[in-house]
């Protein structure tokens, strides 16, 4: 073993704690674009958590979930952005 497997869970726990602040921005943000920024940050953090925990559980399928998540969450952000600028 090269590094202690607990490390992955500690890094994941740090990312999950950062998500708390991101959700605070979603709840607090004065305008709607602020909330979208909070959601986008949360998406990135979830992808990073999924990559780290995929290595911790030692399964390749778990990394694939992260790829699919990164590509799909982008679609949701784009939809809300298109609504806000008056298109759609």
């Amino acid at each position, binding site marked *: 073993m090269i590094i202690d497997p*607990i490390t992955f*869970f*500690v890094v*994941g*726990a740090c990312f*999950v*704690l950062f*998500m*708390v602040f991101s*959700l605070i921005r*979603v*709840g607090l943000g004065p305008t*709607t674009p602020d*909330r*979208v920024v*909070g*959601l986008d940050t*949360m*998406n990135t953090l*979830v992808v990073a*958590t*999924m990559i780290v*925990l995929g290595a911790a*559980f030692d*399964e390749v*399928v*778990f990394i*694939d*979930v992260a790829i*699919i*998540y990164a590509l*799909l*969450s982008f*679609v*949701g952000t784009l*939809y*809300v952005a298109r*609504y*806000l600028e008056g298109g*759609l």
Partner: protein
Amino acid sequence: MSAAQSIIHVVVLVLIVAGGALAVWFKDLISAVLSLAAASLLVSLEFYLLQAPDVAIAEAGIGAALTTAIYVIAVRRTRRKEEE
């Protein structure tokens, strides 16, 4: 199961409840849709933590992309603010 893993589980579950509560509480419907998207992405992460990657993929596709799109289109066709 280590202590760090328990922390991850507890924080994610608390965040799911908080996201759902925000979705009920907002009067602005777009903000409610955004909080619902946040809650559903955390549900996806929770499925992932419980070692069910296939369910997590389905939840990511339906919760993050499809539900948000359908709700945004529905809000576009109706009113943006909730009424008392």
